[in-house]
């Protein structure tokens, strides 16, 4: 997100979900959309069936890998090298879109310089991908004159080098001129229903709503006038940085809405230590989560079916959320709780309903300016919607980037923070199951879902299984330098040799006790997808 905004001026999915049908080539990297975004995965499968070519880059042998025209299985964490290698080949074989680069981008020279050393031989050393495959992939994506889309998921972003990965993707798309057209684009698949909206609304440490940075005086003036208050301009702390700040006594009070860091955060035990040290912890949630159990105050919140509002989905579509039933007991919608608390803190927030809040949003944020509840009553609109008569924007960057010119930001490959060694010889990667979601607090309350997917299995390649004398359904202990979990095994070649994949939905297998809180330097995203582990059979 953060890096895509640097490259293009906007961090969202450039195209629409329905667009997949118009692509000639689809490159899917670091996403198993079948489990993370099933209905989008379906459209990609259908596009493939209807004749699109499919290029999959994934260390895991996903169903997409099985049906791909070309599947690259790089070593985990080597994406920057691989993407730079692809750029290298495209330049070398002169497959790039000269006109697009000249007219619409900047800093191309830098790209040439940085990627020069990523020769196929060098790339193979890092990624394990042979030259022939690398060239084939480069030719397939570059396909001059064809509509080629890139889809990526958390498999790409959840690395210490996550933003470098994304910048490299952006470089590739700009180099080949695959932006600003239906069927093309760079499409991050957002993991949660309203991540896009939360970012749009400025629930971020480094921007005001609408991605107005903390250095944007114009925006500050607008907001301060409307809100009649002086706003802080000091840099805030990212969620993932908060734990250290608590441990160093810089942060004393924490207000957590709808999150369960005890299960969710990388190196979760570190987060627990920090939570214990807090002077004051407020948790607002629909269930008494493990985090809520540590709170000083717990506010009972309404869930999505008990309130009105909007969500913004991964394709930037702003859609209605409608109240169907009353919240249980005395639970209240989050917005009502914020209003009441703020008013008691001396800053009056008085809204009759979510629509009134939304109307404030549309006054402040140009991307949402033309959206009203009435306009999205039947079908949502895709931002930017600059005016009331604007039909919404299914494809971004048509003719011109949001920030004017696209910026090439080449990066060098840096190896993952923690790689296997003698003591911890394997790699752990966290994955999703189709039927489960997040930490299961919602999905696991449905009996049929539990029957479908009742347990976390460690997915181990048959070769590794043989080496460790493990058979299907053995109980194993998986440990990293930070913690360990017990679970049963599933022997499958979906996992790459040397890598064990574990779903993170199950509280009884708190796999984030193992992961690394090593953060990306720009977005502060954690490296969920790689850490060094060892396995032991439990007898």
């Amino acid at each position, binding site marked *: 997100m953060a890096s895509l905004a640097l490259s293009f001026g906007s961090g969202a999915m450039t195209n629409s979900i329905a667009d997949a049908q118009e692509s000639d080539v689809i490159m899917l990297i670091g996403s198993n959309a079948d489990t993370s975004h099933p209905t989008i995965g379906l459209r990609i499968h259908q596009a493939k069936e209807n004749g699109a070519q499919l290029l999959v880059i994934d260390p895991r042998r996903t169903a997409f890998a099985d049906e791909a025209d070309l599947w690259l299985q790089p070593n985990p964490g080597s994406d920057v090298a691989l993407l730079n290698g692809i750029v290298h080949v495209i330049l070398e074989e002169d497959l790039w879109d000269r006109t697009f680069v000249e007219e619409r981008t900047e800093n191309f020279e830098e790209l040439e310089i940085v990627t020069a050393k990523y020769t196929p031989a060098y790339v193979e050393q890092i990624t394990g991908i042979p030259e022939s495959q690398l060239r084939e992939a480069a030719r397939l994506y570059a396909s001059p004159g064809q509509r080629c889309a890139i889809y990526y998921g958390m498999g790409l972003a959840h690395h210490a080098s996550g933003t470098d990965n994304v910048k490299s993707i952006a470089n590739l798309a700009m180099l080949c001129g695959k932006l600003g057209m239906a069927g093309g684009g760079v499409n991050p698949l957002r*993991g949660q229903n309203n991540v896009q909206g939360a970012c749009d*609304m400025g629930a971020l440490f480094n921007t005001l709503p609408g991605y107005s940075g903390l250095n944007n005086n114009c925006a500050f003036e607008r907001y301060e006038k409307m809100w009649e208050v002086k706003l802080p301009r000091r840099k805030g702390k990212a969620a993932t940085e908060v734990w250290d700040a608590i441990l160093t006594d*810089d942060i004393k009070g924490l207000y957590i809405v709808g999150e369960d860091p005890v299960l969710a955060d*990388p190196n979760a035990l570190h987060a627990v230590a920090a939570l214990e040290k807090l002077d004051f912890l407020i948790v607002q949630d629909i269930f008494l989560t493990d985090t809520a159990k540590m709170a000083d105050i*717990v506010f009972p919140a309404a869930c999505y079916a008990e309130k009105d509002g909007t969500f913004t*989905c991964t394709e930037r579509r702003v859609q209605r959320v409608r109240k169907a039933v009353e919240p249980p*007991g005395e639970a209240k919608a989050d917005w009502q709780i914020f209003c009441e608390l703020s008013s008691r803190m001396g800053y009056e927030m008085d809204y009759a309903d979510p629509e009134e809040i939304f109307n404030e949003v549309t006054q402040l944020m140009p991307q949402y300016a033309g959206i009203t509840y009435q306009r999205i009553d039947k079908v949502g609109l895709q931002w930017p919607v600059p005016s009331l008569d604007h039909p919404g924007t299914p494809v971004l960057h048509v003719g011109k980037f949001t920030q004017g010119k696209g910026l090439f930001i080449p990066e060098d490959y840096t190896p993952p923070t923690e790689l296997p060694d003698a003591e911890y010889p394997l790699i752990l990667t966290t994955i999703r199951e189709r039927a489960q979601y997040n930490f299961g607090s919602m999905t696991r*309350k449905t009996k049929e879902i539990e029957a479908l997917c009742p347990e976390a299995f460690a997915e181990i390649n048959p070769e590794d299984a043989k080496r460790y004398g493990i058979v299907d359904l053995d109980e194993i202990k998986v440990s990293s330098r930070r913690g360990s979990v017990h679970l049963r095994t599933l022997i499958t070649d979906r996992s790459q040799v040397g890598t064990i994949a574990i779903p993170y939905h199950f509280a009884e297998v708190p796999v984030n006790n193992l992961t690394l809180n090593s953060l990306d330097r720009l*977005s502060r995203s954690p490296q969920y997808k790689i850490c060094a582990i060892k396995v032991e059979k439990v007898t």
Partner: protein
Amino acid sequence: MTTLTVTINGAEIVAEAGLTILELAGRSDIHIPTLCYVPGKPADTPCLMCMVEIEGQEQLIRACVGLAKDGMVISTESAKVVAHRIERLSILAETHFGDCKAPCNLTCPGQINVQGYIAHVAKGQYEEALRLVMERNPLPFSVGRVCPRFCETRCRRILVDDPVSINHLKRFVADWCMNHEIDLEIPKEDPTGKRIAVIGGGPSGLTAAHFLTKKGHDVTIFEASPMLGGALRYGFLEYRIPRDVLNYEINTILRQGVSVKLSQKWGKNFTLQSLKDQGFAAIYIATGAGVDVPLEVPGTVNPYTHTAMQYLHRMAEGKRPDMGRRAAVIGGNNIAMEVARTLIRQGVAEVTVIYPRSRVEMPAHQRNIREAEKEGVQFLLMASPVEICDAANQGARLKLELIRMKLGEPDAKGVRHPEPIPGSVNTLPVDSIVTSLGQTTVGEKFNGGPLEKSIAITINKTIDANVRSSQTNIEGVFAGGDAVSGPRSVIQAVVSARRAADNIHAYVMGREKEEAESRFNFTRGKGFDDVDMKNFDGIHLKLREKMPTRPPEICSQDFDEVKLGFTEKMARNEAERCLSCGCTAYDRCQLKDLAIQYNLNLNKTGMGTKPVYAKDYSHPVIIVDKNKCIFCGRCERVCEYEAIELGATGFDDKERPVGLYLRFNDNCVSCGKCVDNCSTGALNKKAQIIPIHSEPVQDVRTTCPYCGAGCQIILRVKGSTIIEVTADPKQAPNYGALCVKGRFAHEFIQHKARLTKPLIRKNGMLVETSWDEALDFTAKKLFDLKAMYGPDSIAGFSCARATNEENFLMQKFMRTSIGTNNIDHCARL
């Protein structure tokens, strides 16, 4: 774009070329029935329901594949088309096997969706269960305690072990909601401005008041007694219906906004004419049948002989008439049993019920007879009173002269009536006598004004009102309940009053009455003998839960309730015994809808009589019942994963499949789209076990709370419960596609683990608190932290699952109220 003009059913329509007749008609809102249509994917074995007639063509053609051509004159409902459709439906009906509605539902005089409320109980949705009962019966507390339980007599579980204890479940949900102070908040329509008078505040009057108030009318109940309840209060004493429960039940009805005038005697304090003069647009007579039929033997007039209603009424009022040590009850009806059991409780040592026939011929329910006997009531059968004499201090107050009876020769109808055995007179010394020989509505004529005198009365001394229209012979005056039928069960009074309410509503609004629900019903067998035992393959014996009951020797000594009610666990267990006979696809079955639309006569066409296929529960979220499959093939064609294989090993002479198979292959992702598209109940969602009949269901369009794809979903809401989740195939961005989470994983919403109150940590423990305390404490604490360590000592995590509005407010709160940019959310996690 070229356009063309066609005529459909006489209307000229211009449209673009290239559309099928079905598509073109659909755009002009002309509905052509089809059971197999999937846009763009015509069936290999079509249902042939969409056939239409084209002028100038001999053969009917399939509208789903036939292209509209310029100048076509199309008829979608011609006699030929209709005849064809009926023939097609007949062929499908002939082998379709299942129950549309369950036998319990059909047997209940109230037509209550019994299977539905049992299913709610099984799911722990007690409030919704009660709401469903209340749709048709506003007296669930009373009926749940005294109903004769017609439903249980037809429960198919009888063929396995015991019938489901349906009535105890009804009582359970009512009591549970009362104990948990649940307000059902039954919706009321906008005020109509019409005033309606209800004479009598018993079951019939209360029911009519309930339904009329719901319709927006201004209802006033006129009750002769000082308290409401009628037969519920004065016919059943506390040990059957505790007073607090009855008062709660009545108040639930009154809370909707019913006016009540107590101690207002009809004919004395008001008349029909005075009500009309006061502006009541309609009057409902619901006085019940409270006049005892007198015992016609010499000596009945004495201080120790009472009639049943007199006696019970006085007892209910807390008066304790002196009944001595020995009492006789003359009569064998249900009221006689209530009298006998009340006498026992009053402390009468010997209570004898006297009845001229045998025990099985007593009109009282055998259950009531058994309970009376257990409590010590004695029965003197085949005996009839001939005279009551003063005992003149011979150890008793009265001498009851009895004659023994025998059954005479059969009469013309074959009925054997009891006859006295000559010379068999016996004497029973007693201290008091209560007669219960049946009740009528009125002695001879109603008193009051000329209108009262003109009310038509039947020979049974009940009001002569039309059973269908509830109208009496007087304009604007309706009657129902026992006042019309004579003494019946409470549920029958409820039904009669509900019907009357519908009639009164139509009358005062000057409208036609809403059409009654169709009685069309596929059945697996009308009588028990018709039900194939193969239906019960795989069902394990599980005996019914026993109602916790106080021992008769103890409960007969006081007026406390005898039956204590199911515990929650017992109720859940019992509900799980339900065989769920009725179809859970009732509300979406298009075969049934078309059969009703085309007046299909199942007696003529016949229907499946025994299960050919076993139900298949092997799929994680779907139940397959191939006995209901009509081979429309929609499941296979709507599946976007090619995960369904539907086929048959052969076809019969009418081209119906035999050896049907429906398999899910490894591609299946359990998204459930096939179920939402099934034309009958062949595919069902495992979790959706509630059949929906005529209950209002609200479709709420919203956005899926799971991944970022933004799929549009439809929450189907009944009362305050989400019944199921579906999707609209026309709606971007997902166009009807959902994943297993989107269609199924919503049980968390109403999960009991939800937080319902603010919590605060006190002495190391999280304890419940008020919003005020929680908010004040939080505000103060944040204020202090800010003052001591600065605003940046506070951080907030917003939520990527909350709405835009909420995320916006959260960051606004952190930036304004707190004054920090320490705001973030889990985008990266």
